[in-house]
């Protein structure tokens, strides 16, 4: 009886609802024909198409940001290099940081969320499909507006845009204004997207999917959304104040008019630190999906992982001034922000222990997503430990604004977030395209990226400890930083090669990859119940959820009914 609801073969029997009145569950959205061709992408409100467009465009920005990084590494490869002029170098610093944060990591997570939140919770679309399309187009126009400044005067103040350097008196270029509008457009995009996620996750979960049965990736996206709604208004206010300071004669950040440059730093980091968790919490969620699937074992401590996500988000709102330990600030304030930063280490540590405990006594299947997931844990741990070291504020007086911090953020955001995003890409690519990616190329890509990443960034800790500040276009030969910088540059090119292998793998697999089928990984969540790629309406019949691993239940019941494992699939809707 139960199996008929989702694993039906042959004629579909309508499920019964209370009172025994049959109700058709097949909901086809096709009232009129959907447009095809390029127009279908421009006008779509389908969460999967929007999700794909997010992924394509953010990976394009990832490439741009990566090229900017390689140009900087080339300039720093030797001391007193004259390859790139100082103002160009500072523009590259600014473009790289802004691109990677506002145009890659945050929106790429929105892209994965868009594609997989409805599928994983058993919904047929997002709560507000047209708002969803608006979010995407705001992001694109924000990115275009920002990158157009390359042809005029790109901003060169670093992605932190500290006033008064970003103020009119010191930086009259319109690049700063382009950045201000980028923040407004991408910020609006993110807030609208976040509201959409919140509404969808709260209201549209499949029957039986209570809070304690929600996939951990959904927990990650939900908390990410709440953090976006809480943190983004702060930077929106800050950049508006900067805009009026620059053009309308106000003096929020101008000492001569009674303003205060520290106000900028507080407003910026009140957004900026939660932003770090915005960029990592959904990735924690992906890792929490991937590790159990490839360990053939349930996630260890589901509730602790979900609760620690919420705890990290809460504490993450209370640590912003640890970016300001070297500013003129009373010791008692510094001590508070040190302790709150320490506190975050506890829920983060819980997650790492839970992931390892999930692998412990499992039957680990080393497919490419698992490689990236394990690489994520190994590298994120280093970023976490160096994070605790920089939270000790007297120690941070030495480390702040040096290459140690550059190494730290890259261990968190590249070794952590980006490796997790690659794990997610390899994990979900079969669902999105219907085809498998090449395992061999994936493993080559992983090892190149793993080696390249660590060669690039491990040595930067030591550069920072030897006194190399960040954001310098050149350094004297006498300082003796040449060898380490050269190693770092070599590493960055190995890393880039690894990323190109994955890019090639994607392009190749879309065309000639092996057919994936519905559930190539024997995974746990509902997106694997539907065809690959999923039909426009996602689910003809929405399965009832009885645990945190609905697909496992479905497979078990199908096996119990004596049907072949391949029959775990929703019936194909008529006409598709």
């Amino acid at each position, binding site marked *: 009886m139960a199996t008929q609801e989702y694993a039906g073969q042959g004629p579909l029997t309508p499920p019964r609802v209370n009172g025994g009145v049959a109700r058709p569950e097949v909901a086809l959205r096709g009232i009129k024909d959907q447009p095809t061709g390029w127009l279908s992408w421009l006008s779509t409100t389908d969460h999967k198409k929007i999700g794909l467009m997010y992924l394509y465009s953010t990976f394009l920005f990832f490439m741009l940001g990566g090229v900017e990084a390689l140009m900087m590494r080339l300039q720093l490869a030797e001391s007193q290099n004259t390859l790139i002029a*100082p103002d160009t170098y500072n523009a590259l610093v600014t473009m790289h940081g802004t691109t990677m944060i506002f145009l890659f990591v945050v929106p790429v997570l929105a892209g994965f969320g868009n594609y997989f939140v409805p599928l994983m919770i058993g919904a047929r679309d997002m709560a507000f499909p047209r708002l969803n399309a608006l979010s995407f187009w705001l992001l694109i126009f924000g990115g275009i507006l920002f990158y157009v400044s390359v042809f005029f005067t790109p901003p060169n103040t670093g992605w932190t845009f500290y006033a008064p350097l970003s103020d009119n008196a010191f930086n009259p270029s319109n690049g700063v204004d382009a950045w201000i509008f980028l923040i407004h457009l991408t910020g609006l995009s993110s807030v609208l997207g976040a509201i959409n996620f919140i509404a969808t996750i709260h209201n549209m979960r499949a029957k039986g999917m209570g809070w304690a049965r929600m996939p951990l990736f959904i927990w990650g996206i939900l908390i990410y959304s709440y953090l976006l709604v809480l943190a983004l208004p702060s930077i929106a206010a800050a950049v508006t104040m900067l805009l009026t300071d620059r053009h309308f004669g106000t003096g929020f950040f101008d000492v001569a008019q009674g303003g205060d440059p520290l106000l900028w730093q507080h407003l910026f980091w009140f957004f900026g630190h939660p932003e770090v968790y915005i960029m990592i919490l959904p990735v924690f969620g992906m890792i929490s999906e991937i590790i159990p699937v490839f360990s053939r074992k349930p996630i260890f401590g589901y509730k602790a992982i979900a609760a620690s996500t919420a705890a990290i988000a809460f504490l993450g709102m209370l640590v912003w001034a640890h970016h300001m330990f070297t500013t003129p600030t009373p010791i008692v304030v510094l001590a508070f922000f040190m302790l709150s930063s320490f506190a975050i280490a506890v829920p983060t540590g819980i997650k790492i222990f839970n992931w390892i405990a999930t692998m412990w006594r499992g039957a680990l299947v080393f497919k490419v997503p698992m490689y990236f997931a394990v690489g994520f844990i190994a590298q994120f741990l280093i970023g976490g430990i160096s994070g*605790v070291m920089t939270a000790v504020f007297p120690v941070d007086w030495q480390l702040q604004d040096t290459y140690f911090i550059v190494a730290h953020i890259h261990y968190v955001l590249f070794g952590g977030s980006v490796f997790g995003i690659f794990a997610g890409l390899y994990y979900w690519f079969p669902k999105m395209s219907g085809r498998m990616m090449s395992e061999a190329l994936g493993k080559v890509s992983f090892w190149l990226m793993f080696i390249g990443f660590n060669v690039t960034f491990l040595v930067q800790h030591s550069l920072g400890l030897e006194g190399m500040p960040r954001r310098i276009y050149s350094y004297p030969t006498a300082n003796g930083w040449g060898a380490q910088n050269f190693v770092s540059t070599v590493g960055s090119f190995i890393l880039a090669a690894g990323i190109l292998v994955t890019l090639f793998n994607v392009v190749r697999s879309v065309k000639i990859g092996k057919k994936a089928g519905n559930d190539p990984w024997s995974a746990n969540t509902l997106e694997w119940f539907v065809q690959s790629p999923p039909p426009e309406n996602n689910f003809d019949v929405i399965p009832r959820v009885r645990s945190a691993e609905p697909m496992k239940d479905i497979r078990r019941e199908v096996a119990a009914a004596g049907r072949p494992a391949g029959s775990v699939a929703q019936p194909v809707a008529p006409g598709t």
Partner: protein
Amino acid sequence: MIPRALPSRRAILLALAGAVVLLLAFAPIASADWLTPESGGGTPNAEKIDTLYKIVLYIGIVIFVLVEGLLITAIVRFRRRRGGPEPAMVHGNTPLEVGWTIGAALIVAVIAAITFVFLPGIKNPVDSSANGLQQLAGVEFASVPQPSPPSGKALRINVVGQQYIWRYDYVSARPRLTENRPVFAYESMVVPTNTTVVLQINSADVAHSWWIPKLGGKADAIPGHNNYTWFKIKKPGVYKGQCAELCGNNHADMFAQVHAVPPDKFEAWLTQQRQEILASQQALAAQRKAGEGQ
């Protein structure tokens, strides 16, 4: 227990793990300077930051080796084998989870306690030594976060950052240019050894950050705010640093150095600097007069 057909990949992984552990165990000793902040001028604050850093680093290394070790063990031991048993469906273990939560909290509590033990020695200036500069003015820092040395006496220098050079005003040193105006210098700061020097740091334009790695931590120069730091150098010599906060196109060229000399040489330098400034001001005045006359 370990299957005979040990894959070479596993051996490589084990060797790699061993190498990483060994490297981490010996690296701090072998190349202490690579893995620790700069110090060596004999100023107590930089030395104490260095020690505090090392303590936190060692705790970090222990955690690193432990966790990466568990991760590598899991990778090596729990690979799926053909015909192997299905893993037990364990969903959690509350005592274990409570245990590592408390453990993690204890570790950060210990680091916090150690930090508070070291903090006064880093933040509070010490007295100058007997062989330091003798004529020192009292330091008055009412209602600022920077405490003064126990004796209340230190050489006070105002540091002003501007695009792209540092200016130093010797506010508490004699001889002065006039009653109100102190002797000043740019880029290279000459200071007496064995003398407590307290710096008051601010900025004339955008945010900068004062940093001489061997003499302790950074202090941001923020327009409209005064920031403070101090040092007391034992070893004469030149200590180099540069601006640590992006301040514009030539941020990378905003160098600073502290030149520590014995107190008698410092006094001689101060007198000479005063004469040179006065001479150049007179020459400038004469030039201006000549210019007006034309």
